[in-house]
């Protein structure tokens, strides 16, 4: 446990001090001003646009962090053989994965928390400027959407870990996890699109439909974590929905990490 914690700690320190994180934070400040500017252009729904911008930029910056700071921190460890200094310790391969995952997750949580503060600040600014447009706005809906976005990023990170556990270069890992993200966040829409003609009697190839359905199960269904529309309009989201999505996210990450542990245990580091 101590070993796991210390690995998480140095991973966090290493990640936080790298320039990627600083760059992303500067970008975040830029996005905050952009948010104030763009949502101020709206005629009516200032609150909605402000929340949209806040949530989407959080999602975007989070993805940059996952791909370029997160997945890289793990796969570079193997590529540059810094992993030797860890595996030479009495740390099992599984603990290595978990410690690394905990450390990188901490980086993401920490950076996104800072970003969320900036984004909330931009919303406060807009709220004071246009109080009449913020009547339906709710901080709790915004918070839950932040939370689910965070969970979805952790899920994407866990798929990155799976790929890093067997691929030998960080580039392949990066490409595979980006592709997974793209499929995971659009599969549900594609499925919905294919199912509509089915309902009105038009024929789509059943094979295609099966493939897409299978993709929905295999790839992380990231649309489950998207309650941005609800947050933007202050619509009611039942707690049971939020809890079940979080449960799904944690379970999916758990499966991904278990698979990575199994693969990693057998792996050699020549």
């Amino acid at each position: 446990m101590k070993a796991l914690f210390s690995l998480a700690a140095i991973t966090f320190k290493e990640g936080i001090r790298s320039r990627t994180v600083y760059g992303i934070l500067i970008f975040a400040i830029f996005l905050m001003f952009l948010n104030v500017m763009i949502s101020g252009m709206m005629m009516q729904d200032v609150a909605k646009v402000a929340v949209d911008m806040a949530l989407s930029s959080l999602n975007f910056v989070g993805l940059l962090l996952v791909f370029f700071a997160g997945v890289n921190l793990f796969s570079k460890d193997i590529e540059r053989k810094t992993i030797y200094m860890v595996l030479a310790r009495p740390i099992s391969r599984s603990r290595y994965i978990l410690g690394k995952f905990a450390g990188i997750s901490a980086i993401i949580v920490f950076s996104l928390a800072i970003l969320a503060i900036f984004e909330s600040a931009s919303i406060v600014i807009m709220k004071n400027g246009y109080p009449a447009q913020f009547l339906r706005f709710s901080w709790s809906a915004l918070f839950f959407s932040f939370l689910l976005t965070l969970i979805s990023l952790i899920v994407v990170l866990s798929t990155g870990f799976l790929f890093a556990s067997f691929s030998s270069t960080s580039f392949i890992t990066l490409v595979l996890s980006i592709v997974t993200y793209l499929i995971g966040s659009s599969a549900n829409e594609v499925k919905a699109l294919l199912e509509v003609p089915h309902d009105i009697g038009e024929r789509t190839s059943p094979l295609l439909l099966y493939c897409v359905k299978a993709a929905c199960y295999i790839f992380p269904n990231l649309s489950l974590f998207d309650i941005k529309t609800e947050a933007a309009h202050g619509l009611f989201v039942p707690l049971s929905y939020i809890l079940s999505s979080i449960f799904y996210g944690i379970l999916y990450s758990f499966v991904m990490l278990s698979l990575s542990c199994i693969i990693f245990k057998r792996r050699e580091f020549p």
Partner: protein
Amino acid sequence: MDPIIRVHDVSKSFRDNLSARKVKALESISLSAEKGEVYGFLGPNGAGKSTTIKLLLNLIRPDSGSVTIAGRSVEERELRRIVGFLPENPYFYEHLTAEELLWFGGQASGMKGSEIKERSMMLLEKTDLLDARKRAIRTYSKGMVQRAGLALALVHDPEVIILDEPMSGLDPFGRRMVSNLIIDMKKAGKTVFFSSHILGDIEKICDKVGIIAEGRLCLEDSLTNLLNYGATLEDIFFAEVEKISVKGN
């Protein structure tokens, strides 16, 4: 007494990524080091020195044969509590400081906080990194990185110390420092297993020498026995390696 490091009849081959052809890296290697010995592992580049060392750390696994340290299989995780390792051309998290690196090493090996502090200060002083201990490793020179790696390998006061090319990239001062460290460890009753291709260094500090070429161990004997014949280590090395190459062709 059983040898503390024992590699018995180990073969290892790697798959070539492009053609599915297997490349033999080690062919029925057996070697052993007694407790308290300094074992110099010699061989030309690509002979299988690093492969053997990675086998000792369970970074790779043998196709056949067995590898044990202190009578226990190297696959045992807890075993690495008593093993210290310095990789070849070590590369560490570059935004950490030497102090943090040693903190991690100690923590991961299950040491107490105060113990880590004490030992790391002692080791940083010995490796001449005391002034640089709060600087990111990124700013270190190659020699400093090597020394930090050495301190990391020793932080948990291991019984068995395995060093892959500890002298490479060091200036004469650095090499003398490493030699002295190895001699200190020997005095403290530790076993040191290190690979090198700098024959002079080995001649000065080793008790036992193993020479490897093309994945085969061609000679293993105590240094005194070897030098009894009047030849220098260099002569023996060249003779043994050439013998193997002729056989191979």
